[in-house]
């Protein structure tokens, strides 16, 4: 069947009662999961996988993918309203989203995030319809040197976008990377585990994420009566949220660029939506006419992050289906769901299972519309959370966080890890450091470390020449150096300007 026939069949299949109901259910679950610290898309998809046993392969995958995609929407809501991103990919959304909440503009931020996510997802999956057949060649070009540089870039970008001290962000990122190298490595050695079996699989990301973002933020607001000051609390406005859905269209260049960047990064196995969000945010800031607004409440920044992290899911699913290579726990479970139904993802999957593949993509496109409705409802409902006194909000979120950290491996060690990360994150926030950089480092360390070890094994003593002999790696290296130099240079100029202004004022 040709591509147009497949697309037609795909849409026809999706517009049935059962698929639509499953998309609505999956989307609702995904948004709740995304908004709740301690719950992840992997957890939700893993728990609900057995539910799909009795469904047809298409309906089962549609249900699970709806959850996977909508988690990012849900995570943005808490990132903006409470500065507690529900998922790692919403971390950068919190930078400007929460600043907007403190300015009484949470409804605009929510509308922008939902609208940008919808456009990012819609464009990404629409491109997938036409491009899925030729994607494999692009993704296969990324080898060990390229993946290593991408992982390092994910942390270095934070230094470039940081509105605070670049050197503190670099230190935080390097420390996070070092923590992330703990565990058993490909050579079989136990590295810095202190013979603790809970560290053998490496430091788990979820407790560190919950501690660094949720617990530390709760500690920061413990002395406040409400999350934000009373005079700017009254910003729960359904009309503003809905009207703000079209805000992304006022920044078309930013939107298109972020979407394509997110989709491109999603094609790379294991790169992840977090990297997509940070990369897009960094690029948007450098291209912006108001770069100084970033980090202080830039709607553009929120849009860049959210369109990229949602577009990334399209690229990630494409890689999963076309290459059979999952980029995350959740896409690995999706692959498991396909296997459970007797299907094998890979380069021949599209040719052999065209109607199924195009049905999945069409469902993802239709889901975007459902997600807008569910997310707007969730945003309006959750907006009330900033009116809840902290003496009630904090205990509830601490319970969720404790259970969420424990749930990963049924281990008290992870709860202790979460609490330690929370304490460290609190001290970092109080002294101008970046917990986001630490978490990013922990997430990306395994990619960087494993790819570096592969480079030693592939290239021997001349491993470092791979960075210059391979055009793609050389380009990425140049971009990485330029990004770091830009960040350091900008920081230096800002400090000099501040010092000159201060000495000028003293002279007066």
């Amino acid at each position, binding site marked *: 069947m040709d591509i147009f026939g497949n697309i037609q069949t795909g849409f026809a299949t999706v517009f049935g009662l059962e698929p639509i109901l499953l998309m609505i259910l999956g989307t609702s679950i995904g948004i709740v999961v995304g908004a709740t610290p301690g719950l992840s898309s992997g957890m939700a998809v893993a728990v609900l996988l057995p539910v799909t046993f009795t469904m047809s392969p298409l309906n089962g995958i549609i249900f699970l993918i709806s959850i996977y995609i909508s988690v990012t929407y849900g995570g943005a809501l808490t990132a903006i309203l409470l500065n507690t991103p529900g998922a790692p990919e919403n971390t950068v959304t919190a930078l400007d989203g929460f600043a907007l909440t403190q300015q009484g503009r949470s409804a605009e931020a929510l509308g922008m995030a939902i609208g940008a996510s919808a456009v990012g997802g819609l464009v990404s999956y629409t491109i997938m319809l036409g491009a899925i057949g030729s994607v494999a060649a692009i993704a296969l070009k990324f080898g060990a040197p390229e993946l290593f540089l991408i992982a390092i870039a994910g942390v270095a970008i934070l230094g470039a976008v940081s509105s*605070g001290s670049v050197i503190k962000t670099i230190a935080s990122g390097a420390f996070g990377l070092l923590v992330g190298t703990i565990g058993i490595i490909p050579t079989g050695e136990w590295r*810095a585990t202190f013979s603790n079996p809970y560290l053998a699989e490496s430091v788990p990301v979820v407790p560190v994420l919950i501690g660094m973002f949720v617990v530390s933020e709760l500690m920061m607001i413990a002395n406040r009566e409400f999350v934000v000051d009373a005079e700017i609390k009254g910003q729960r406005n359904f009309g503003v949220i809905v009207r703000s859905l079209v805000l992304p269209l006022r920044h078309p260049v930013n939107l298109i660029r972020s979407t394509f960047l997110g989709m491109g990064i999603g094609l790379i196995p294991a790169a992840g939506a977090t990297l997509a969000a940070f990369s897009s945010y960094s690029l948007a800031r450098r291209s912006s006419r108001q770069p100084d607004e970033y980090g202080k409440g830039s709607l553009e920044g929120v849009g860049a992050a959210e369109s990229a992290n949602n577009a990334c899911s399209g690229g990630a699913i494409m890689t999963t289906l076309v290459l059979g290579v999952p980029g995350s726990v959740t896409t690995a479970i999706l692959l498991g769901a396909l296997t459970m139904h007797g299907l094998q993802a890979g380069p021949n999957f599209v040719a052999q299972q065209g109607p199924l593949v195009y049905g999945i993509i069409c469902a993802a496109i239709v889901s975007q519309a459902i997600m807008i409705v569910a997310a707007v409802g969730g945003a309006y409902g959750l907006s009330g959370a900033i009116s809840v006194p902290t003496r009630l909000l904090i*205990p509830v979120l601490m319970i969720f966080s404790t259970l969420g950290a*424990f749930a990963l491996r049924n281990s008290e060690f992870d709860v202790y890890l979460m609490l330690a990360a*929370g304490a460290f994150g609190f001290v970092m926030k*109080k002294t101008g450091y970046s917990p986001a950089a630490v978490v990013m480092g922990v997430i990306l360390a395994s990619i960087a470390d494993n790819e570096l*070890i592969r480079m030693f094994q592939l290239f021997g003593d001349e491993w470092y020449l791979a960075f210059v002999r391979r055009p793609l790696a050389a380009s990425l290296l140049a971009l990485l150096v330029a990004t770091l130099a830009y960040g350091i240079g900008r920081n230096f100029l800002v400090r000099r300007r501040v010092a000159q202004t201060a000495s000028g004022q003293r002279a007066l």
Partner: protein
Amino acid sequence: MPPWIKELIVPMLMLAGVGAYWFDAASLSSIALAFPTALTVVILVSVAIIAFQALRAPNKEVATGHPQTDEATGVAAVLRPWSLVLLPLPLIFFWREIGALPALMILAIGLMLVLGARRRRWFLLLPALLIVPTYLLFKFVLYVRLPEMPFGGV
């Protein structure tokens, strides 16, 4: 606390972490230590620069970059945030003996008291409406193996 000491708290903690890392990992192969070595160098250089900047301007206030900086004073205000990480510790340590649900209820009520809740109805409503359903969600829907209460029970 003088600003320059505040500036050095996180670097000192990072150095302690790096020291602990190398205490256990120093005997590994060169391949295993290549990446950690590079990262350690970056951390040491960064910490040195931060320390230099802090000591060069010892009275320069720390820029938190966090909009929620709260300048509450007094012992209670300082201890309140730390109660969020200190209160759960003994409860999690002993929850296999007392059960997860009682431990979580004690944690929730303890935190509410520390944070200033005084209305009695909230001490009943919050556990009943939120803590118990959350516990049931994790235990019976997500199949998390939470410690049960002694002598049977949930």
